[in-house]
């Protein structure tokens, strides 16, 4: 086994064993500490995955379009031809690191504060199980394995929302589980269609269409795209998200928005577009129109929203609309924009949910009408909130800008009346995004302190700063050096676009 393969296994095994260890540790605080250490070790294992064979010489017709830096391919259930096939490349690595980082921050945050509803030990153990599922989804190179990991995430996330959430948590958790289960059913059927038609579940072999007939590709893409659209979420399949994000505890919202949604967009790029390129070409205009509808509807709803966490949840709908628009263009520019938009949204919205949770914990309310004047009583918290909001509205020089601007530029690049219109409308959506975030800031930070805000002290806990500062720095770093994400993604994306338009 090479070093890279050890790392691949470690990335999945460490959090899984960590979850077991956390559950087995009797004392609550010690258990949380064990979980945080496991999450840290996972991050330590995830980062060096980038060192490896990255010889991306120009893509040629013969070579496979997916060429992982590290690969592990073991027979698993030989009778069913199932293989335990893992791999990492430039499309998945940024997301793997983001997942490991956000889980670590959430575990660390849980050391300091456990939301009401259950023991901190169980929460940390569930977070680690969720991490295993998400990382497995990003690493799997076998469709059945992909599906399995995709499903692993669902129940622990349900438990996190239902166990530690807000007042209306049970209903929100049930809606989340049922809705995404509906998506999973379609995913299962889609995977079945592909595997039955192609006779293999190997993503490396399947990418590029692998002799699937046009009809199979259209059917497979439709099924897979709807399944991933539920997870991403794409308007109009998004309505599980506001409830789940609003009711989930802070760490749950961070993981949900930060990385769980990325499973949908990642699946769309890696599985749906890769496996059924002809279907992707056929459905791209529909996908683009829906993505722009998501941008506009999401930002308009935010403009009329009255609850902080709900507003941020709906802003995710808009931001993921930009990501999906980038994917829908099926150009190198667009897919690269989608990848960096994915990572940026994870960092920034994770930060926003942390801050909204902090505001809600301190004031006891999330209603915009009851919040004002935060900069008078807690200037640092208000400053951080302003930073996160401004990063999220896509200020050039911060992380959010690249994904949104280049989704628009990619749409303009495709050209033609439809895509130009979509690009223009998406750019207008950018202005609306600014409008609702400024409205949020004006309401929450400016003016005289309301009674709820008047009680808030100016201090920030050390644990809070430890959880937030990495995200702030990342938002700046990715904004100033987008090559951090895009440098590794260029080769794989070129190869993918190469098979979509052979």
């Amino acid at each position, binding site marked *: 086994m090479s070093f890279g393969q050890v790392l691949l296994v470690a990335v999945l095994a460490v959090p899984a064993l960590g979850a077991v260890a956390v559950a087995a540790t009797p004392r609550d605080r010690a258990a949380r500490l064990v979980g945080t250490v496991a999450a840290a070790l996972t991050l330590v294992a995830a980062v060096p995955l980038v060192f490896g064979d990255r010889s991306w010489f120009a893509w040629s017709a013969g070579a496979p379009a997916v060429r992982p830096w590290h690969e592990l391919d073991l027979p698993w259930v030989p009778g069913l031809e199932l293989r335990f096939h893992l791999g990492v490349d430039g499309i998945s690595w940024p997301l793997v690191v983001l997942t490991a980082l956000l889980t670590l921050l959430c575990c660390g945050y849980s050391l300091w504060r456990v939301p009401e509803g259950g023991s901190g030990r169980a929460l940390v153990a569930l977070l680690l199980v969720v991490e295993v599922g998400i990382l497995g989804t990003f690493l799997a190179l076998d469709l059945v394995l992909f599906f399995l990991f995709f499903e692993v995430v669902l129940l622990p996330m349900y438990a996190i929302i239902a166990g530690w959430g807000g007042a209306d948590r049970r209903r929100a958790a049930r*809606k989340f589980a*049922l*809705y995404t289960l509906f998506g999973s059913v379609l995913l299962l059927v889609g995977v079945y269609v592909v595997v039955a038609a192609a006779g293999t579940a190997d993503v490396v072999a399947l990418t590029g269409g692998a002799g699937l007939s046009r009809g199979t590709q259209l059917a497979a893409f439709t099924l897979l795209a709807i399944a991933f659209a539920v997870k991403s979420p794409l*308007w*109009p399949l*998004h*309505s599980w998200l506001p409830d789940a994000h609003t009711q989930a505890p802070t760490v749950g919202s961070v993981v949900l928005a930060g990385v769980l949604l990325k499973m949908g967009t990642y699946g769309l790029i890696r599985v749906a577009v890769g496996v059924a390129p002809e279907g992707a070409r056929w459905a791209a205009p529909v996908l683009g129109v829906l993505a722009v509808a998501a941008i*506009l*509807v999401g930002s*308009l*709803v935010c*403009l*009329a*929203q009255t609850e902080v966490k709900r507003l941020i949840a709906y802003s995710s709908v808009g931001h993921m609309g930009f990501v999906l628009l980038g994917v829908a263009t099926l*150009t*190198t*520019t*667009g*897919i*690269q*924009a989608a990848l960096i938009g994915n990572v940026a949204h994870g960092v920034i919205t994770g930060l926003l949910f942390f801050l909204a949770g902090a505001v809600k914990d301190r004031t006891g309310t999330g209603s915009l009408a009851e919040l004002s004047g935060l900069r*008078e009583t807690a*200037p*640092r918290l208000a*400053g951080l909130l*302003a930073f996160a909001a*401004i990063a999220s509205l896509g*200020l*050039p*020089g911060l992380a959010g*800008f690249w994904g949104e*601007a*280049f989704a*628009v*530029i*990619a749409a*303009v*690049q495709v050209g033609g009346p439809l895509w130009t219109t979509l*690009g*223009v409308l998406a*750019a*207008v959506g*950018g*202005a*609306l995004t*600014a*409008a609702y975030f*400024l*409205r949020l800031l*004006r309401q929450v930070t*400016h*003016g005289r302190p309301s009674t709820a805000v008047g009680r808030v002290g*100016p201090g920030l806990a050390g644990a809070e700063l430890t959880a937030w500062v990495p995200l702030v720095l990342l938002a700046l770093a990715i904004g100033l050096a*987008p*090559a951090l994400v*895009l*440098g590794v993604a*260029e080769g794989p*994306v070129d190869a993918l*676009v190469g098979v979509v338009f052979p």
Partner: protein
Amino acid sequence: MTGLLGALLPAVPLVAGLLGLLLPPAPRHPTTNAEGGDRARRVAVALGVTGAAGALALAVALLVTVDRPRETSTTWVDLGGLTVTLGVRLDGAAALVAVAVTAVALAVQVYSIGYLRRGPHDDLDVDHRYPPYAAQISLFTAAMLLVVVAGDLLMLLVGWEVMGLCSYLLIAHDRRLPGAPAAAMKAFLVTRVGDVGFLLGIALLGVSTGSFRIADVLAHDHSTATLTAAGLLLLAGVAGKSAQFPLHTWLPDAMAGPTPISALIHAATMVAAGVYAVTRLYPLFTAAPVTLTVLGVIGSITLLLGALAATAQDDIKRVLAWSTVSQIGYMTGALAVGSPSAALFHLLTHAAFKALLFLAAGAVIHAVGTTLMSEMGGLRRTMPVTFWCTVVGLGALAGVPPLAGFWSKDGVLAVAEAAAREGTGPAPSWVGWLVWLAGLAGVAITAWYAGRLLLRAFFGEPRLPLVRPHDPPALLRWPVLLLAVPAALLGLAGFLGAFADRLRFATVPVAGAEDALVHLGPGLLLPLALLLVGAGLVLLGWRRDRAADPAAALGPLRPVFARAFRLDDVQHTLVVRPVRALARVARTGDEVVVDGAVEGSGRAASGLGAGLAALHRAALPRAAAGVLAGALLIGLAAALIGGVR
């Protein structure tokens, strides 16, 4: 070497700004722990002034060393064949604008130390958050300098939007004004609406070129349709930043910001950025004359609109704000008739005299505690230094020879006249006529409102007898005095060959009026005459009744001008309210229709399940009958299928 200077230019204030943001934003307990707050304030002052002074030194060094256009670039990121570069593009014009920006920024940093100080009579709210304030000024300066030196369209966009953000933060600084947050939001949003166009324009050019480097974009052979579309889209962003009709509405409201910030926004940063960006990309605009025609119309409307609105304001800062709108109209007019040199010359002189005017107005406001001219009067005797500085500033604004504004405004008018009479401009000659006539009318109106400001604030009897106004302390006085020098003399620099050379655009294929910045000749007489007419009219009105407002002579037009033709209301009715209504509809639709369908299908499923469950809850006889019937059916089926086989 020159490239390094150019790169350091925005970096120095950026570092100062970022460090400043790390300082404690406010003293923990303003009453008990003033010591810690004072220390943070001292550090903030040092950082702000050092950053601005360092940038000024760099800009001057750059001005001295840059002799020909220079360019450095390195790849920033490559997205699917579209290259984004990091690099600077330096020439004489960039260096001159950089000097203006940094000089005004330094003046504002120094002035702010005195302006935002807690006095014995202030309530506790004043000067509560000096560190973020000074840091944001540094960031603002850095962003503007980035726009000035940027060699890539996306770098330019970064500076462009960060400036919008800083204006937002600084306008909202004063917590005592309830209108400040709304004004700040308006400033950011209106410019952001323009930036939608700016981004799309950049996208079109970048996609057409395959690179966002300005040199590549200028060298590429674009199709006329692309150029026209991109140019018009870019103009939307320019109109937003430079407060041109119809996106000018944010600028007067932005007066809610502290007065030094007004000086910064109006003189050197923000509003100047739009005009400067057009000069950077000027060959693209001349290749698509439609864009310059549109710019000429916009500029002429803005010029007259701003000047007329300035005549009826009572707030001294709003008079100056509208005068900025009008003066930027001169600059865009000059661009439309083919002379970026004249536009930049006016930009530089305007930076000097408008910074002077705002800082002097700040001294007046500081002394009398109000911004309304109806409560001032008679300040000439009590505040002589401020009075004479204001006289210089207003004279330059109105174009009194030999002050700065006279020469630069005359340069614009001369180019416009040539474009009108001889058709030398890139746009049709009627655009020249439009700009020229609007500019001439503007001269008279400007003289009128400048005279009104001077008479209302500094002459006559004091209307608030209780206050004892006095000239400002040294920290406020020196920046004002030093700015009076360029406001008076910068126009004469137009006669210097070295200065004119730096503003000359080799790439601009315009003949005739382009050979010199200043034009001595009979053409000077017409604006001078109009100046005298405007000044004479206001003096006449004032002499008739020294206590009354000369604006009373406007009659029924006065409220219309005071509310700037009610364009704010138009914008509110046509844009703000429909968007709000649409947002409410979208929210309701999303909750009732989209989510309603989901919830409905959930309820339908559980209802169906409940119905089936009810069917299964049958009494024993019916259940037994059901079981038997089922057995019978299965038996029948088995017999039939088995029988067939």
